């Protein structure tokens, strides 16, 4: 058991750190927001009206691309860096420490790996380079109003018509769809087959005729999600990845990505450090509730939980580095991490008493730019998306512990 870097790992860490120090544009150096928020920031910059912002976004993407670091986990032959899982981990750790935006998005994390494993040469040639250059951003169309945790019950229909599929139905929770250029989706191609066996994996231009997006404003009044509607959307059959009706299994494809989720723990720890700093300023003292003593032990607990979360992340990458595939451990990370996130936001908001309900980040009455109350609201979806806490516990119990399915 060893929590320190090997000499090779330490060298690689130094290399990544030096790169970030040299190349990260000033605009992304606040080091204050979570990586996730800034990623959104990068995605928005890429599509900004302001050419300066667009240039900054593309300059950062270009610097990364030169090293294959847009898609560090992809094999070199496809334009990635072919990093080992432990190198990916160090890369992700350092990027998160610097709160540097990761331009890849869904194209790098989901579509690319699926194409690499199941795509035709033509599909790979068409799509992979545009993901790497930042030219095309991808959105995911999986969930439907009637298919959430039970995703395989999805009903969006794709009916074959010659060389085309005609798609009708609706997707929901399309993250960043309004900033994306293309969409990959699971659609039903056989309504009679058992539910997992009648699904196909398809790609489409998000500006396809008949495809429309509607913003789904969240409870924090932010536009992150969309509803996506398909009315006789026609796409070429060659936009299907893998065999017809095998889409469920195509969608389950995982490349050898590191899956520690280390960025969460890093951003929670950074946030705790920032609070400590702020509380030592005059402004911080003016906001701190007089009975803050009631909250300090709660905050100590959150720090301890963050440490536990770090270890869960280290465990995942240790398993992967030994050439094994994490089983229930990945579900533990997702469940525990999202629940810590919510508790943390709650405890941190508590620190400010009544000021904890000021939402406007620019208000003079908003401690630390209202980030904690915003996080209190913003963390609500985290125990729900990507497999709710309840689904994760089911997975841990059945797949991990071998308990009989209900």
């Amino acid at each position, binding site marked *: 058991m*060893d929590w320190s870097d090997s000499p090779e790992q330490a060298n690689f860490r130094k290399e990544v750190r030096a790169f970030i120090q040299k190349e990260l544009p000033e605009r992304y150096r606040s080091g204050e927001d979570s990586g996730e928020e800034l990623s959104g920031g990068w995605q928005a910059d890429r599509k900004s009206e302001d050419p300066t912002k667009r240039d900054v976004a593309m300059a950062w993407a270009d610097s990364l691309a030169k090293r294959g670091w847009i898609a560090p986990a992809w094999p070199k032959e496809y334009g990635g860096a072919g990093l080992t899982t432990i190198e990916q981990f160090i890369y992700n750790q350092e990027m998160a420490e610097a709160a540097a935006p990761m331009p890849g998005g869904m194209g790098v994390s989901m579509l690319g790996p699926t194409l690499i494993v199941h795509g035709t040469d033509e599909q790979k040639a068409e799509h992979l380079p545009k993901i790497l250059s930042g030219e095309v951003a991808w959105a995911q169309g999986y969930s439907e109003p009637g298919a959430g945790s039970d995703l395989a019950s999805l009903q969006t229909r794709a009916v074959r018509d010659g060389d085309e599929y005609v798609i009708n139905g609706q997707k929901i929770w399309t993250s960043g769809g309004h900033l994306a250029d293309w969409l990959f989706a699971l659609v039903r191609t056989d309504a009679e087959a058992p539910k997992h066996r009648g699904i196909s994996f398809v790609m489409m231009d998000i500006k396809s005729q008949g495809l429309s997006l509607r913003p789904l404003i969240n409870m924090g009044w932010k536009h992150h999600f969309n509803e996506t509607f398909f009315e006789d959307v026609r796409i070429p059959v060659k936009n299907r990845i893998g065999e017809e009706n095998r889409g469920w299994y195509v969608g389950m494809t995982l490349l050898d990505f590191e899956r520690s989720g280390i960025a969460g723990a890093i951003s929670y720890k950074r946030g705790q450090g920032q609070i400590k700093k702020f509380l030592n300023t005059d402004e911080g003292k003016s906001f701190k509730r007089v009975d803050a003593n009631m909250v300090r032990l709660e905050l*100590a*607990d959150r720090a301890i939980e963050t*440490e536990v979360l770090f270890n869960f992340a280290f*465990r995942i990458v240790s398993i992967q580095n*030994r050439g094994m595939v994490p089983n229930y451990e990945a579900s533990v990370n997702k469940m*525990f991490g999202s629940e810590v996130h919510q508790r943390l936001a709650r405890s941190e908001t508590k620190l400010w008493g009544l000021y904890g309900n000021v939402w406007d980040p620019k208000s003079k009455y908003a401690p630390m730019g209202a980030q904690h109350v915003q996080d209190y609201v913003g963390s609500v979806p985290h125990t729900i998306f990507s497999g709710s806490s*309840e689904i994760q516990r089911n997975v841990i*119990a059945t797949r991990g512990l071998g308990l009989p399915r*209900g």
Partner: protein
Amino acid sequence: MDLGLTETQELLKNAAREFLENECPEQHVRDMEEDEKGYSPVLWQQMAEQGWQGLLIPEAHGGAGFDFLDLSVLLEEFGRALVPGPFMSTVLGGAVPLMEIGSDAQQAEFLPKIASGDLIFTLALTEPSARFDESGVQAKATVSGNEVTFDGTKLFVSDANVADYMIVAGRSAKGVTLGIVATQQAGVTINQLQTIARDKQCEVVLKGAKGQLLGTDGGGWAALQPVLQKYTVAECAYMVGLSQMDFEIAVDYAKERVQFGRPIGSFQAIQHKCADMVTDVDGSRFIMYKAAWAISSGQPAADTQIAVNMAKAWCSEATRRVVAHGQQIHGGIGFTKDYKIQLFFRRQKRAELAFGDSDFHREAVAQQLGL
């Protein structure tokens, strides 16, 4: 960076598990609850032959020269098997302080006999105030050359009833001072307490009890810090093993127990408890090993201290949640004396309280974080 065991640690763990499954079965644990001594001298000698009492002790003094991280691996197995007896008292409370601050002569006198299983030690630290801080040490220590005389009452002293020697903490004019005190002398009176874990914690009344000075006059509290760190993490390791086994028993039971025509483990209400149990057990294991690693690899003092406090704060509560779920999953059978799960439940509480519970260590964490 790797959170797996080394090959040596795997061997140690497997050997310990096999040995303890054979030599320390449930019936032995039960027998020792009602035994006056609380341990089996035969098993004690067998453990010495395995090299366990001397695991940390340098080879020059008859030990195996392993490090503290290795010992933590062994102690996890001790927790799993609920091994009764004075092992931790002797190793953490005796061998460790002797190794930290014992003179060459003291090390040569005592360490080989600890390694060989010929001596039992314990640490007499706490008093009726039940405090773990420096001001908790109020027993009087009177130093005269290399001799120290103690007067006062030490309380919650594990295994004093069978110990040959105690490392006693008292207070001289210069501050906290330690001594190596033989239990067999007129000035020492030992009374056993009945405790939740039916282990052997004692009241030790010292009236002119004499011993060798250990370390310097007044230097005792500083000298105790690395001892307390290790003992605290050792209790965490014990809780990790204990809660792992409790969890495994509960999951097995959930697979077998049928109600409403199906195993109760097929109900989500039970499944989700089991998922929380494995999360707490795993979380405990890694935060404990992180602290053990920090100690073993000599990480910076501040990092090591907070790692120890975080480990005990977390393990004390997380393993309590685990054993509580273990009871609930078992339903009625679980709270009978005859069924094994309660053995874990009761022992978890002892370890939770030992060397500071969650509240104590959480406060220490808060202070170090500047909260």
